Every structure is written in C-alpha cells, then in structure tokens.
C-alpha cells in the first residue's frame, strides 16, 4: 500500500472514525458522505465507533501472501460493530479454534503490516475476544 493511501485512512484505521445519519439512525464504516436511504434528506455527522462488536462470520487463513505469511494461521472476520456497521478485520487469537460466530470482540491497536525492512509501518485496528 502506498504511503499516501495509508495516511489518508489513519482516522479510520486507528480510531474507527465513521459517520452516522441523524435522520434514519444508520451508522457507516467506512464513512459515507451521503446516506443511501435518506439521500438528500439525510443529515450525516461524524461518529467514532466504540470498538466493540460480534463476529458475523470468519475465515481461517492458512496460506497467506508474503506480507502476512508470518501470521498464519490467522482469523479474518466480518465484525458487526455495536452501532450496526460491519467491517472486515483480523481477530487475534492464539488458536483459531477459539473463534465462533457471535463471539464478542473488542478493538485493539496493532501493526497491520510493513513495507519491507525499510518502508513505512502501517498501524491500525484488529480485534481480540472481549
């Protein structure tokens, strides 16, 4: 990932900064500037997600690209945040067998990857069992 591309998403990756439509009550992550339901009648405001949620579904990655091969086996999950928005993230567990659908999780700050030995280090949100 290019440095500018990662840098632009730091608020979302570090602190789960999304948006909320005050008219219909929907929450969006990643953030939307326009509510797809309310359209021009919607009123979008910023919202920082609390970082707690449950696992909707997940996959155990045993064969990964070079950048993530050190981490295998690891769990990639769709997490439904308490406010309702869903996101894809890694769930950090010692044993993938611990993970189940409906598992409560909370956000933690971890390294997401590095651009080789000399490149930029990307940080962001992963989840652990709550």
């Amino acid at each position: 990932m290019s440095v500018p591309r990662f840098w632009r998403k730091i608020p979302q990756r570090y602190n789960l900064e999304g948006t909320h439509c005050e008219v219909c009550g929907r929450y969006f992550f990643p953030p939307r500037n326009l509510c797809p339901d309310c359209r021009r009648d919607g009123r979008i405001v910023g919202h920082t997600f609390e970082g707690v949620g449950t696992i909707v579904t997940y996959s155990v990655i045993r064969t990964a690209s070079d950048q993530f091969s050190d981490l295998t086996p690891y769990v990639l999950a769709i997490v439904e945040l308490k406010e309702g928005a869903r996101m894809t993230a890694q769930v950090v567990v010692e044993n993938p067998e611990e993970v189940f659908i409906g598992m409560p999780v909370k956000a933690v700050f971890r390294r997401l990857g590095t651009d080789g030995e000399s490149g930029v280090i990307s940080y962001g949100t992963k989840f652990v069992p709550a």
Partner: protein
Amino acid sequence: MVGIITYGTYIPRYRIKLEEIAKVWGDNAADIIGGLGVKEKSLPDMDEDSATIAVEAARNALLRRDIDRNAIGAIYVGSESHPYAVKPTAATVGAAIMATPVMTAADYEFACKAGTAAMQTCMGLVGSGMVKCGVAIGTDVAQGAPGDALEYTAAAGGCAMFIGDDNPIADINHTCSFTTDTPDFWRREGQAYPRHGGRFTGDPGYFKHVQGAARMMLEQMGTAPSDYDYAIFHQPNAKFPQRVAGMLGFTKEQIAPGLVVPRLGNTYSGASMIGLAATLDVAKPGDRIFVTSFGSGAGSDAFDITVTDRILDDAVFSRGAAPSVEELLADPIYVDYARYAKHKGKIMVQK
C-alpha cells in the same frame, strides 16, 4: 499540585519461562533463576511493538478517566526500541488517542529511565502552565542478544502516566535526578542488540545512581524511608531492587506491590513505571510512594508521591475500568524458544 491524573499499563499475553531459554544455551536454569530472581518474562505478539504497547497503555489510562483530548498538550514516549529510528512513536500515540494536532511530541531514549524522564518533562510543562496535561509513556519490546545474559530478562510492556494539575489521583511532591557519563550499557547506531559491561553494570551503574538519586530525595524532602508506605526501584532483575532497598533502609513489605519483575521480566523503559502502576493499583488515599528509576549510561530519577482521595472518587477516576498490572500478568500464554525466536524476529528468513 502537579501530579498523576490517570495511568494505564499494557503487557502482552505471551510469556517464556527462563528454563526454556537456559535449555537452548546449556545454562543451569536453577542458577540463572536463583541469581536473577526472575521466573518468566513477557514477549510481544507478532504484530506488537513499542508503539502498539504505548497506545494500549495510553488507552487504558483514558478508560480510567476520560481526559479532554484538547487538554493534552504534550506526549513524550521513552523507549530504547522505538519502531523507527526517525519518525516519532509519540505522534502515532497522539493520533491513536485523538490528541493531535494541537500538541507537542517527541521520543525519548535514556536506556531504562526514558519514561520517568518524560514524566519530569511533563511535570515542568504542566507546572509552568504551558500545557494542561502531558502524557509520559515508558514502553519497550526489550532487546537482548541470543545467548546474552540480557536475554533472560528483556521483556515487553509499557505504562502511560498522564500528568496534570486538575484533581490528581496522586500528587508528585518532588522529583530530582542523579546523572553521570557511565558506559555500563549501550547500543550503537544500527546495531540490533545492546552490549553491557557485565558486572560493571552493578556498583558503578545501578547502585551508585539509584542510591545517588534516592538519598538526594530523602535529604531534600527531609524524610526517612519509614515515612513512605511503598517504594519502587528500577527492576532489571529481582535482586538489584531488593538489595538497594535494603541498603537505603526500605523494607521488603514496602517494595512488594511494585516488584513485578519475577513474573514480567525487565520491560526497560516501562519497568519503574509499571512498578509504580502496580503500586497505584493497590494504594489508598494518603499513601506515600517513593520511586527511583535507573537508566544505563547512566542516571536515576526519584519521585516523592502522595496518593489523593481522588483515586477512590468514582466521579473523577475509575481504577477498575482498565486492567490492573496483576490482571495483565494473569492468564499468560507460554511459548517455547522457537516460538519466542519467531516473535522476536530472531529467525533468519529469506527476504
């Protein structure tokens, strides 16, 4: 008065027992464990480093007390394992706790006492009215070369102390330092692991400086060891802090809550501060705490601290909202040396 307005700690869940390290290098485990007084040490997960530990520690502090992010005017992160040689860990912490951009920030390095030096800086900024709140963090994924004596204790963990004058949970009555140019431990630019002067790190290093700062504090405050309820001394192993406590006249009971090194190892820049956090975890209003850090190279920072009523005031501070040091030490995941080597990046792989 300037003091600690909240604090937080983070310790990774992974541990390796010293027997496992001794087995690899053919050392006598009983001698090593007996000599150091350390049974096991923490290590980071594959995706943890000094920055992620610093962020988790700071966020745990904010769980205990929701500080106005606009009030945070300074963040200093002390470590000897900053992820970057050039790019501040403190800026990453600032973004991760949403304190940027109206703040100053810098990374500190003074071996194991960079975190307490950060506390002193924040005290100065708050005391002078330059900032309302300063964040001082000591964090490390400590480095020890394979087979070196340091490998038995070099651990991972960190602690964040938020310094301010708005209803502190603990007043910092005074701080003083004792510093000399002493090459007892060092790491040259570009080197992966530190080197040290072996036994030279003892008397001319640790004991001279810890005693220098501690005695200076007692003299300047006109106090005796018996005036304090608790004491924390830098803990590179369990022997040094116990010995120096005895030399200064402190009892085993006074240092017991803060002596976490037997189950944690030496978290370098985090070590003294985690000891202080473990003591704050159990302290009552009115308790007086004596702290003396030590950083090779070499220097010590001493602090005289009095716990206030606010530590139990739920309207201001919720001690149970974040994990205590004792809770962070519970439920570890033990690994063998091979897994430890992988987590610490000690296995050479094709790149």
